[in-house]
């Protein structure tokens, strides 16, 4: 109450200048009246039998609606798993994708989404005062659980952000491998920064800079709408730019999907290296066979791996140091730090006029020491978190280098499990697919791959492998 009085007092002073002199008396009277918390003007006594109208109170989303969303998510994920793993139907996936775009995108307006829920979970794990709503926790967990079993079916057709990008992908072009690897570090940085800023209570940047939310709400600030439009425009040529080079949730999904048992596969039977699927993936997520290709000496590779392992601690250290140095700019996202800096600046420079934040702080009645201590705590937490974030990124870079210098034996055309979105674009290109099966009746004995024994295929002459690999 006290705060309001002080506030009203200062506002009164400002406004009184604007109002004509006759009102000054009224203001003086009013101030007295307010101090006693009495209505300045008495409650009217109506003689015409007037009833006070009710102030309307539109209801928020009910708990029931949130559980319906959870149910829809579960059904969509189940259907997506069925369509991707069992039916291998691109058409089915596309239809489900359109439904998800309509429901989770335009109807739910992009909230609640598993990508943003990372922050809720992180915030609740590090803050005593915040507890994550159960439905949000389920939204975070469920796609990850599905990914651990069936691969990233969430990306294929349930994620509204993925759907809107997938729908505009009309003229796919390939991105050079090196650029892919380089840009592939960004999602880790985004994930780390999102978790760090959420867990310190500084802000939810993943939600704030969601490029498509403006479209889903059909409403928003021009910069974000333009950003979203830019992503969609790029997305016409480069498949799913947000998913590939930004999405923080994709990292977590990839960690789970890497070990999934029932993942979508290019061929339902056995790969015959016909190369028909080679160009079907617009995201470059197909592992190409590399048998018979020229390889470097094993010793060279091992030595390089050793070098990278030696450099690894250095990379982690440097990363951590950089993260620590980045803490001050990160802290400028924080409201407390912002107010503290403003108050200090005003103290040092008396010519500076109060802005609304320092003014409100003055009315709040907190001491300056308290404010500075609170700001310092945020800075400390971010400085410590900066070490961890930077170290994590150093580790990511080291692993990327290792992965690039290691060559695995790859015999067949297979999807790259950690990154594959299970969009099923490659499925219809496989001649063993049900679609083409009738053409192969003559061959007779094509069996599902799991019924085949591991037979050693006699080494073929170095196959001409596409320029891409």
């Amino acid at each position, binding site marked *: 109450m006290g*705060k309001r009085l002080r506030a009203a007092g200062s506002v009164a002073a400002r406004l009184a200048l604007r109002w004509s002199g006759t009102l000054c008396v009224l203001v003086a009277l009013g101030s007295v009246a307010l101090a006693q918390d009495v209505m300045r003007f008495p409650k009217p006594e*109506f003689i015409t039998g007037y009833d006070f109208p009710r*102030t309307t*109170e539109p209801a928020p989303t009910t708990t029931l609606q949130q559980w319906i969303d959870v149910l829809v998510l579960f059904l969509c994920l189940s259907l997506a798993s069925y369509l991707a793993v069992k039916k291998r139907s691109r058409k089915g996936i596309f239809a489900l994708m359109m439904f998800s775009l309509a429901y989770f995108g335009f109807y739910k307006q992009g*909230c609640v989404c598993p990508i943003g829920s990372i922050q809720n979970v992180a915030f609740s794990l590090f803050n005593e005062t915040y507890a994550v709503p159960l439905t949000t926790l389920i939204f975070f967990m469920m796609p990850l659980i599905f990914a651990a079993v069936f691969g990233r079916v969430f990306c294929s057709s349930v994620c509204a952000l993925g759907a809107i990008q997938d729908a505009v992908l009309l003229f796919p072009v390939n991105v050079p491998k090196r650029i892919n690897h380089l840009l592939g570090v960004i999602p880790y940085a985004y994930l780390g920064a999102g978790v760090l800023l959420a867990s310190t209570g500084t802000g939810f940047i993943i939600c704030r800079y969601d490029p498509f939310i403006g479209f889903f709400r059909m409403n928003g600030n021009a910069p974000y709408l333009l950003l979203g439009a830019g992503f969609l425009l790029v997305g016409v040529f480069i498949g799913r730019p947000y998913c590939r080079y930004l999405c923080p949730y994709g990292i977590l999904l990839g960690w789970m999907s*890497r070990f999934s048992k029932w993942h979508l596969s290019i061929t339902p039977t056995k790969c015959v290296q016909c190369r028909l699927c080679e160009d079907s993936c617009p995201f470059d997520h197909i592992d190409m066979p590399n048998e018979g290709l020229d390889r470097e000496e094993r010793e060279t590779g091992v030595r390089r791996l050793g070098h990278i392992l030696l450099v690894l601690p250095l990379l982690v250290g440097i990363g951590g140091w950089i993260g620590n140095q980045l803490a001050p700019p990160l802290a400028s996202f924080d409201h407390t730090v912002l107010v503290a800096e403003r108050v200090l600046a005003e103290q040092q420079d008396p010519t500076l006029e109060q802005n609304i934040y320092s003014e409100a702080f003055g009315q*709040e009645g907190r001491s300056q020491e308290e404010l500075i201590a609170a700001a310092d705590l945020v800075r400390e937490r971010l400085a410590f978190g900066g070490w961890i974030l930077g170290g994590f990124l150093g580790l990511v870079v080291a692993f990327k280098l290792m992965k690039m210098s290691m060559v695995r034996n790859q015999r067949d055309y297979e999807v790259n499990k950690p990154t594959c979105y299970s969009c099923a674009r490659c499925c219809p290109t496989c001649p063993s697919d049900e679609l083409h099966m009738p053409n192969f009746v003559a061959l007779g004995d094509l069996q599902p791959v799991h019924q085949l024994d591991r037979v050693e295929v006699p080494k073929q002459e170095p196959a001409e492998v596409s320029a891409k690999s």
Partner: protein
Amino acid sequence: MTDKVEKPKLTRMEFLSLTMGRLAVSALGAVGMLGWLRRRKKNTVWQIDPMTCVSCGQCATHCVVSPSAVKCVQSYPICGYCRLCFGYFTPNAPELTSAAENQLCPTGAIERLFVEDPYWEYNIIEDACVGCAKCVEACEVFGNASFYLQVRHDVCVNCNDCSIARHCPSDSFSQVPADEPYILKHDQELLA
């Protein structure tokens, strides 16, 4: 009868992959368990405490929804039903009519209806209100403070991280239980 099926031997890579997979799944399980232990029993929504609000006007500009989900509400039992409403008329209004030049509201979102002499009813047209708090400020300083800001939950999308709350200078935003989503100045039940 039972032929012992020999278990296929795991290769080193398969073993590694299996172990890593189990590790990943257990890590996910651990996060899930921790989250479950710290889950929220009741859902919450954002709301403004009208007692601490300083009518700074940032609600109009910082909401992710535009126009803002924050609107002015009218507590009728507190309103003085004044003929000269300071929330409705601009200072030194040429005359006390609803002509545009007399109105304080930049979007004309207040409706002025005659009840009986000398009382006038003031209603907020929510579709037009942008939450700029000009009327709130004036009503609080010169009137009964029956105009004040509230988050309207038919518009609010209940962001994780309310953009206005981040910018609220008086820290008036808080998450309140979803079954009591408004902080009104009067008791609605007394009206009935």
